């Protein structure tokens, strides 16, 4: 009985059968059990003559309680900069927002040259900020020594000694030696189980790591937005990422010589498309030349690009010359050249919708927008006159977000009569486009847009699900 192997001992030996040689740290990771348990198991195996061991010790770093807290909430100076969002604010106002983190935030932000303080006002020098210390908290192994020193100095991590035991297999266990501390069918029905004293477990210990499969947090938000549009009676449609300039620009009354159509504002793709509807092409040529006074060119309109707005999908709906009433929406990716940082990506989502109905009014359009935002959890909305080439009257909707204040959410308007007549629609129509990423960041409480597309599996595994 004494040479009987426990289940975990057997597991280690099984593992060593493949590897021959390993160490306690690696075993703990691969088996998903705590290092302390691994160390005692190895000692037992050594006593039983299965393995040879060698003990070394090594320094490593672990998060302090403060460090764990900051990993969850962010570093004070990061929060400060991202709260300011490029705007100056009174010190007192900031004090109210940051409370007891105020002093730390100000002193570190100053030390790092992120802010100036003048006459009781904090003036940020950058719009967004994510410190290397914060990133290091999630991944201490990869942090450089400067950052480690900083973290130590700030009391976010502490040095610990760690015993590493290297293990080498010297004797393979015989089958009969592997005791099964778990019950099995034979033991139960034969009554054999009575002969053994079943080993006690440490039932109060935490379990090994276990992956919970779950849906992606940002995808869940996108699907929620779709559900809202469906609940409002809209039909979902989707079109391709590769688009002709005709649908992205020309049909939307954007003149071909307009600065917004220059090469640095959208991604070009080689080749050109084809449009069978010659009447439509002629109508668009006519309104462009009549109102914008330039020579409209067909080869430009057929050029290919990555769509820069989902309004291209709306344009395709219009080009199909639909009969009123229509309520359709699309939610998809658009692409625009930009510098990638905490608030900008070169690909992001837009929600575009259009209502085509007899006597659809501007006030009704405002009502639709208000209702969409209400269902997204934004109760306060205000409207500002705006300019888009394809709508008149045009409007921008601002929503009130808890942390950010009034934020521009969407552009909208009634489609210009020139456009409607070019596709033979004789009723009115309202259309809008909503940027989704910023809403998602607010909804998911994420301060860096890149985290919506994190490629760190541990970050994704660690995200909590929202109950609502």
């Amino acid at each position, binding site marked *: 009985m004494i040479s009987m192997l426990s289940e975990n001992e057997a597991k280690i030996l099984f593992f060593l059968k493949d590897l021959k040689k390993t160490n306690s740290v690696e075993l703990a990771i691969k088996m998903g059990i705590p290092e302390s348990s691994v160390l005692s198991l190895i000692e037992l195996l050594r006593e039983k003559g299965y393995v040879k061991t060698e003990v070394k010790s090594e320094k490593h770093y672990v998060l302090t309680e403060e460090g764990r807290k900051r990993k969850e909430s962010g570093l004070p100076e990061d929060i400060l900069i991202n709260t300011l969002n490029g705007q100056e604010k009174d010190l007192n106002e900031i004090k109210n927002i940051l409370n007891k983190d105020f002093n730390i935030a100000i002193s570190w932000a100053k030390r790092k040259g992120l802010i100036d303080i003048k006459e009781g006002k904090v003036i940020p020098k950058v719009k967004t900020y994510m410190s290397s210390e914060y990133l290091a908290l999630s991944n201490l192994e990869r942090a450089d020594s400067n950052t480690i020193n900083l973290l130590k100095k700030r009391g976010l991590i502490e040095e610990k000694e760690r015993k590493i035991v290297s293990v080498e297999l010297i004797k393979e266990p015989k089958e009969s030696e592997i005791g099964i501390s778990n019950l099995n069918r034979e033991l139960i029905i034969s009554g054999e189980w009575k002969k053994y004293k079943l080993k006690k477990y440490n039932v109060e210990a935490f379990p090994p790591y276990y992956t919970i499969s779950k849906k992606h947090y940002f*995808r869940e938000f996108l699907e929620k937005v*779709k559900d809202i549009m469906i609940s409002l009676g809209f039909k979902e449609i989707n079109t391709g990422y590769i688009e002709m300039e005709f649908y992205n620009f020309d049909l939307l009354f954007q003149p071909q010589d307009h600065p917004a159509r220059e090469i640095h504002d959208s991604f070009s793709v080689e080749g050109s498309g084809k449009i069978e509807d010659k009447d439509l092409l002629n109508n668009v040529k006519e309104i462009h030349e009549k109102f914008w006074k330039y020579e409209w060119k067909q080869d430009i309109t057929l050029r290919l690009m990555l769509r820069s707005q989902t309004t291209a999908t709306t344009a395709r709906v219009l080009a199909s010359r639909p009969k009123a009433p229509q309520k359709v929406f699309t939610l998809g990716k658009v692409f625009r050249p930009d510098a990638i940082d905490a608030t900008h990506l070169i690909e992001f989502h837009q929600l575009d919708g259009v209502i085509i109905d007899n006597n659809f009014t501007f006030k009704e359009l405002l009502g639709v927008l208000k209702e969409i935002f209400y269902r997204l959890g934004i109760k306060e909305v205000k409207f500002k006159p705006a300019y888009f080439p394809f709508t008149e009257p045009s409007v921008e909707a601002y929503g009130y977000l808890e942390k950010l204040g009034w934020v521009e959410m969407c552009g909208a308007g009634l489609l210009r009569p020139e456009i409607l007549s070019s596709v033979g629609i004789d009723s009115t129509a309202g259309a809008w486009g909503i940027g989704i990423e910023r809403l998602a960041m607010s909804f998911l409480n994420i301060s860096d847009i890149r985290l919506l597309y994190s490629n760190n*599996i541990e970050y994704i595994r660690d995200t909590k699900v929202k109950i609502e």
Partner: protein
Amino acid sequence: MVTIVLNKYKLLNKIGIGQQKLEDLLFNLKSEIKPVDESNIEIEINADRLDLLSSDGIARAIKGLLEKELGEAKYDITDTEYKLIVDNVRTRPYALAAVIYNAKIDLQELIQFQEKLHSTIGRKRKKVAIGIHDLKKIDSKRIEYREVPLSYKFIPLYEKEELTISEVLEKTEQGKLYGNISISNGVSPAIVQEDGEVLSIPPIINSDKTKLDESTKDLFIDVTGTSFEAVAQTLDIIVSNLAEAGGTIGRVKVIKTDNSFQQSSPLLIHKIQNVREEYANKILGIKISEEEICKHITRMRMNCNVENGIIRVTVPQYRVDIINEIDIVEDIAMSIGYNNLEPSKYISTNYGSYDYLTLLERKMRELSIGAGFVEVFNFVLIKNEKILDSKYVKILNPISEEYNAVRNSLIPILLDFLSKNQHAKFPIRIFETGDVVIYDSSTDTGFRNDKRAAYAIMDNKVSYEDVQAPIHYILKTLGIEVNYKEENNDIFIEGRSASIVYENEKIGVIGEINPDVLIRFGIEYPTVIAELYITEIAKKLNKR
């Protein structure tokens, strides 16, 4: 969106209101204010409202909303003896000019105004370019617009000595920026005085001779371009805003050398636009009278009267954005204030409907979670070197080599993801669904989006069946019974990959990744992957 920077105190003083009031009123004129420093503010102007690109235009509009002044702004106009003789200038045939007497100019702001007009209606000087001169430094009443050879000499603005036009093109910043716009066949457009001395070389640079300075009172303004209408509108806007500040507009006689055209410039083009009361009310969803409509129009600084039940709006020269009845309707709404229009309660009377692909994708995502895969979500754009075959869409003008192509499969996307997670807790079981772009000659662009689902497992030890089993039963649960047909390519280990076949159609691939590929991606552990073609499956399920 265009932004201008103005001195806050000067502006507030000009209008006679406080900053908060200014902010509120500008909000209703499509504009927003941001502080720049102690005394300057940045104002965002929408690209249609060119009249608001200087403080005087803003003042004019705001006085209307405050009802300090209503209707069209009236300015002093006088005749002058100045003539602009327009020759046949082939690359930018149109030119107009005007004089401003007693201009109250803020030099910095005037230059900003000029530059903002250049970048908007001027299309970076291609369509329209503006030259502003100190009138008293011009020696003749007769001014010519004609072509001159590139060997022609003058002292360009802020230079010390004479340069030929060719030298201007090579040596000056402006020459490099704008030199290629209008020069052709060895000649350049030029504005010259009677003795042939250059006043400006549109659209590149003025002559130093007529430079504005602190003592400048009277201005000569030339506008040249490739569109007559844009040239006329630009000049109308400039003279209107200078006149708003208190200047007097002086008319210049513009004559074509072949006598095909003779006109008093600026044109100060007024347009009559009729508005139907019923139309305005119907569009906005309100009910207001003709008189009220007219009142709003005058608050927007246009004239309005009602004749035989028709509302006639006189659109002044500074409102070049008004092109149709609907534009007047927007102005009515702006005068009312968008936030004074009570949004109609939205009530849906019908059910919406999902794209079938969305429904199928959702079911597949649920089953994939059930099969123990964690969902990941990556970019559509990718570095072309990571793509595993040669048929993909390349971006012609990428801004980063990391994102210079459009993904044509989710396999490299997942491999890239795994490569960044070599030290995470094992096993790693991930999946992603989403669109890729593939060639399709049956569509109007030659490409189409194709929806895919891809699954990957990376572990110390993993094999074909580890991914085959879950996807097999995911498909089976959807009612899809598939077969596997061995199919080898460079991505997978030979003999360990297959195409997934359903009703004789390939609906996916599966296999163990070739170690060569693993190394290329920086992956150190065995990896298996399957990719399913959701769009193909949807077609098979016959619902689309």
